[in-house]
């Protein structure tokens, strides 16, 4: 009896090992094609053109003749929907494509201006699509961007897309958003969502744009005056009104936007030296604390008092002026604050002139002033925002001086 019990248990164990080690949906790693980026453009013959960047496992093989194989391949398919294109894609690839490791989804500008809700609805329901994947808008077509994006420092384009998040944080000029960020703003708020702007380098800015003025980085993706083999650029942001792209902002506007929203991490700012106008002072600043936003109703007008806190250090003082002295330091802080306040005012005015709506998401905070869900649902935020009196105040505190305590002038001849 005891022995038969033992055999029974062994049989159950054996069956468990057999059945629990696999499933109907099991796919070995050499059976799938990992899609690392997906681009969406308006199709020529169909509604949609999907371009997929597929990792090429042959290029990563230690042996087995990887040789000069390209590390990734771009394939484009046209079809009526994302998943129809996915199905067609699988009809001519030897491996089954999977979006489980997709780092970014890119919308071509033309499609983004038509509206991206349909495609976003396609994406979020699918198990393989992760909400923490990046979501960008591409000036021109996504296909062209993906074809010309050839990272030189990375073996895999997937790694480059992963690093863009970090790069957005250290420059403040690019607007790194993922599906979760965009979708949450789109569904939860009345204000306008924004997405990072990418593009293919033309090597020079549009006429009249130059970074002669300190604090200004007047370029959008594709316009940065530069040389280099990889033509992909990440700078600026695309502005949406609900799900339709309605405009774009450049690098410095993006930095201002992130500062006002409280999403800013760190960046270097070049300002004109207050005492020596032909010299510059460079500051490296980070957001000191979350912005302070207060609302007041005065004579039927909503007043928004917005304070942005920054702190950081001197990176360079070309003139050698002793700004390290706390009294003189205040002069630099004030000059920087007034400069940033001017930028903020210009950006707010721009959103109103172009009827973009509230890209700063003030309604996130304004919901605290409301008392019922119906009130929030029926809020005409665009009108309230357009008529609101917004006062932005920058408060910067330069806490460190870098490796130099003070500049000692050389002997006069």
């Amino acid at each position, binding site marked *: 009896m005891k022995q038969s019990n033992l055999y029974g248990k062994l049989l159950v164990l054996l069956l468990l090992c057999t059945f629990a080690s696999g*499933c109907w949906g099991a796919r070995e790693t050499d059976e799938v094609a990992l899609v690392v980026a997906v681009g969406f453009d308006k199709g020529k013959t169909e509604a949609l053109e999907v371009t997929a960047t597929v990792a090429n496992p042959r290029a990563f093989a230690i042996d087995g003749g990887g040789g000069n194989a390209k590390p990734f391949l771009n394939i484009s398919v046209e079809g009526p929907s994302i998943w129809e294109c996915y199905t067609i894609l699988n009809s001519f690839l030897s491996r089954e494509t999977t979006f489980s490791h997709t780092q970014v989804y890119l919308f071509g500008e033309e499609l983004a201006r038509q509206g991206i809700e349909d495609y976003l609805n396609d994406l979020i329901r699918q198990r393989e699509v992760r909400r923490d994947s990046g979501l960008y808008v591409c000036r021109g077509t996504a296909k062209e961007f993906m074809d010309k994006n050839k990272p030189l420092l990375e073996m895999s384009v997937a790694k480059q897309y992963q690093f863009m998040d970090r790069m957005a944080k250290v420059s403040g000029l690019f607007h790194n958003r993922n599906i979760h960020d965009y979708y949450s703003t789109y569904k939860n708020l009345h204000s306008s969502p924004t997405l990072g702007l990418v593009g293919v380098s033309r090597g020079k800015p549009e006429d009249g744009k130059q970074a002669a003025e300190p604090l200004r980085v007047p370029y959008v993706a594709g316009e940065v005056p530069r040389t280099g083999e990889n033509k992909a650029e990440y700078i600026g942001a695309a502005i949406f009104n609900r799900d339709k792209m309605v405009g774009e902002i450049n690098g410095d506007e993006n930095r201002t936007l992130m500062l006002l929203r409280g999403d800013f991490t760190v960046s270097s700012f070049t300002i004109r030296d207050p005492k020596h106008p032909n010299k510059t002072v460079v500051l490296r600043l980070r957001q000191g604390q979350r912005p302070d936003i207060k609302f007041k109703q005065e004579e039927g007008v909503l007043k928004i008092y917005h304070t942005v806190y920054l702190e950081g250090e001197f990176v360079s003082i070309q003139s050698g002026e002793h700004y390290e002295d706390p009294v003189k330091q205040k002069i630099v802080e004030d000059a920087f604050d007034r400069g940033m306040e001017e930028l903020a005012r210009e950006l707010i005015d721009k959103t109103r002139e172009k009827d973009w709506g509230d890209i700063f998401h003030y309604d996130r905070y304004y919901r*605290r002033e409301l008392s019922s869900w119906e009130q929030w649902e029926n809020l005409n935020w665009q009108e309230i925002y357009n008529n609101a009196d917004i006062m932005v105040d920058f408060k910067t505190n330069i806490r460190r001086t870098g490796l130099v305590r003070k500049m000692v002038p050389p002997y006069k001849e």
Partner: protein
Amino acid sequence: MIREGKIGFAEGFALLLISNIGKVFLSVPSNAVEQGKTMAWALILIVIVITLLEFWLIAELMKNFRDRTIVEASERILGPYLGTAVNLFFAFYFIAVMAVLLRSYSEAIITSALPRTPISFLIITLTVGSIVSCWYGLESIARVARLSIPFIALGLIILCTAVLPEADPNNIFPLFSVDPVELFHHAIARQSAITEGLLAALLLPAFGGWRHFRRAGLLAVGTGGGLFLIIVFILTLVFGVQVSEEFMLPVYNLSRIIEFGRFFQRMESVFLLIWAMVGTIKMAVTLYGANLVLARIFRLPDYRPLLWITTLLCFSLSLLPADLMTALMIESDIVRSYPGLAITLGLPFFLLVVAKFRKAGGEIRDEAK
């Protein structure tokens, strides 16, 4: 006489707690946000009070039947015919809960992890797991529950803290957005039916004392409610009301957005383990409850011969809804709504009132202090 064995306070608490938190991993938190909007947290607070009251009522009912189960108690209070009818309702409730659990957990596994696996295979796997657990009995299930608690707690703590960087405190405003009467209505009509009261009343003889039973039950229901509150609160903070309402598996979605740098990602694999632990124990104990009620109604010396019949019944019932949405509708409109509440709260309350009344008449004596 059925021998359930003995379980300690910690084991009883673990068993009831895991049974209580099973719903958190399904679409129930999204339903709560849909009903309570930014006040979903308040809705859950009301639910906690109601469920504690529900358990307290059952504990009061069982005070005079300390070495018996609710099955014998209802027969003694209402007599053999009416008492048996009431007990059949209890048994059917456990069977219905088990069928809904089988279906919703299987569908959830298909949606989240095994999209190509046939539903019948998953239901059979879960059913076999429940049968084996029940076969080994209450002590084994309770001990596994007790051992699982640290892993479940650790997983949930990691989950809840890891998503905090994504939380936006503004998402819970407007703070007092929903009419309290409406909130109270939703709390009663949609969220307050729990099986743990009945379950604990079935396990009372194994608990080693009425005080243990009451304390473990109240603590488990309170802790489970607290966890439900935290999950709903975090869900609202991270996704906002509109997005949270959309989710089929909100906790799974929470786990998918966790990201600490390039190496600490894809936490849903950890979450799936916790989910499997909770689901298996919850189903095992529910099936055990159904069998125990039936065995005691029919005065069988052992519940095991009934296992095959009740399991087959649960299996068949679980496959009856044409699709997942129908199964969820059955759960929200019947199992967790007024019909469910009538069985988990109404019947025990009725029994308590009758017991008090008849005791006053001198017909029921507490035989086992």
